[in-house]
């Protein structure tokens, strides 16, 4: 068998072995992969990066623990970046299984950055019926959320003193694993013209590109890949760090990148073998 024919007819166990070795090795020695960042993820990052101390960013977190792997890294990275810029955060949760999870994130990150509840951030908590809740918040946050998650009346929270509705936040970022996104687009942006960006799961990504084109959202973070892009930017700017174990989505990205490269290489090897052995004949 000639060299090229051998290239064409590798025993499939060699393929298995290479894939196995690559996965195990990259799982042990994790490294940063230089990453292409899509413009739609970059625009979210750039917006948060342009916040001036004291400005308020709102995050609507609408997902359940099932899709945590993809969406949690986005919530963490944006929260950290926002606090690092000394901007203020307003959070709410419109998914019934999410409120406790969001509380954990904000409490943990606030502690890291020495931020105070009620002054630097407010967590409104959960309300059912997302459409009505979003519409009511467009009028006044106090209508659906007279009190915050911890039971303090909004009026007694210093940060909320001059805040009425969406007009008082610089932008809203909705991170969602389901239909919640539609409500934010239709009501928060459609009815109150709030500036909106979204973070969604991988399978949802393609469905939301049209909203980007029509300008209803100014940014989109799509799935694990989008989350990794965001972390990549945030890590480069020093908002999050690998040593402190603050990168989540990026963790599996080296494995993904290397296996994708290996598979593509195998396809190339097979084809080179095929063409060269054909030419010889």
């Amino acid at each position, binding site marked *: 068998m000639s060299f090229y024919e051998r290239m064409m007819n590798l025993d499939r166990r060699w393929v298995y072995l290479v*894939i*196995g070795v690559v*996965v195990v090795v990259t*799982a042990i020695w994790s490294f940063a992969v230089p990453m292409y960042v899509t413009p739609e993820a970059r625009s979210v990052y750039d917006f948060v990066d342009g916040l001036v101390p004291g400005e308020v960013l709102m995050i609507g977190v609408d997902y359940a623990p099932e899709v945590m792997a993809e969406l949690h890294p986005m919530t963490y990275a944006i929260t950290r970046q926002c606090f690092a810029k000394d901007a203020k955060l307003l959070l709410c949760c419109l998914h019934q299984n999410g409120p406790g999870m969001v509380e954990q994130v904000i409490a943990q990150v606030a502690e890291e950055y020495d931020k105070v509840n009620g002054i630097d951030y407010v967590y409104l908590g959960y309300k059912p019926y997302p459409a009505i809740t979003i519409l009511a918040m467009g009028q006044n946050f106090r209508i659906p959320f007279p009190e915050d998650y911890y039971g303090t009346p909004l009026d007694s929270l210093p940060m909320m003193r001059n805040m009425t509705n969406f007009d008082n936040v610089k932008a809203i970022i909705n991170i969602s694993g389901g239909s919640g996104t539609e409500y934010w687009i239709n009501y928060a942006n459609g009815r109150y013209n709030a500036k909106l960006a979204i973070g969604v799961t*991988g399978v949802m990504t393609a469905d939301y590109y049209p909203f980007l084109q029509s300008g209803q959202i100014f940014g989109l973070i799509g799935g*694990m890949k989008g989350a990794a892009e965001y972390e990549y930017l945030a890590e480069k700017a020093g908002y999050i760090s690998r040593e402190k174990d603050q990168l989540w989505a990026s963790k*599996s990205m080296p494995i*993904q990148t290397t*296996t*994708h490269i290996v598979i593509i290489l195998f396809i190339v090897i097979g084809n080179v073998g095929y063409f060269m052995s054909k030419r010889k004949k």
Partner: protein
Amino acid sequence: MGTAELIWNGVAAFLVLCIYSFLYKDNPFYKFAEHLVVGVSAGYFAMILYYNAFLPKLIHPLLAGQWWYIIPGILGLLMWARFSRKYQWLSRPTLGFVIGSGAGVAIPLYLQNYVIRQVHATMLPVGFTSWPLITNLLIIIMVFCSLTYFYFSKQHKGAFGAAATFGIWTLMIGFGAGFGMTVMGRVALLAERVVFLRDYFAELLSALF
């Protein structure tokens, strides 16, 4: 991890390795795991059916006096006629019930979800003046040509053949994309298993020493 959990997880880790050994070649370890999982899963499924279908959907309603549940009882018992070669045919009405209901449900649902809804979703405004309008036009041309590919009663020749060829190209681009998109999810599953094994052995070592 407690000792019991450590042992259970050890069983799990062993079985995972048994399955992976199949990558090299068929071997007794794989055969063991394979036969074990076939038996265990069949038993599990039987019990699930017993507790979630047999008892609540037949026995409990009958005991509560809902006599019409006799009907599925009879249909089910007729299935047991299959134990005898001679009376096997008695089970056919039951099979007919299952297949008939499947066929009847399918007609409106398939026409609704796979035909009318898809047609409706593809009725897009087209034009040459903006990129979204151009892509809409492309989508409609591609759907049209892909449908010609599925024609059975016409020879793929001339203009019709050209359309069908473009159609199968479109389908192939779609299938290629599907393949490419799936790789990520599958690799994630493998990475997750590798991490499971790594963590288990780390745990085991720290428990032993």
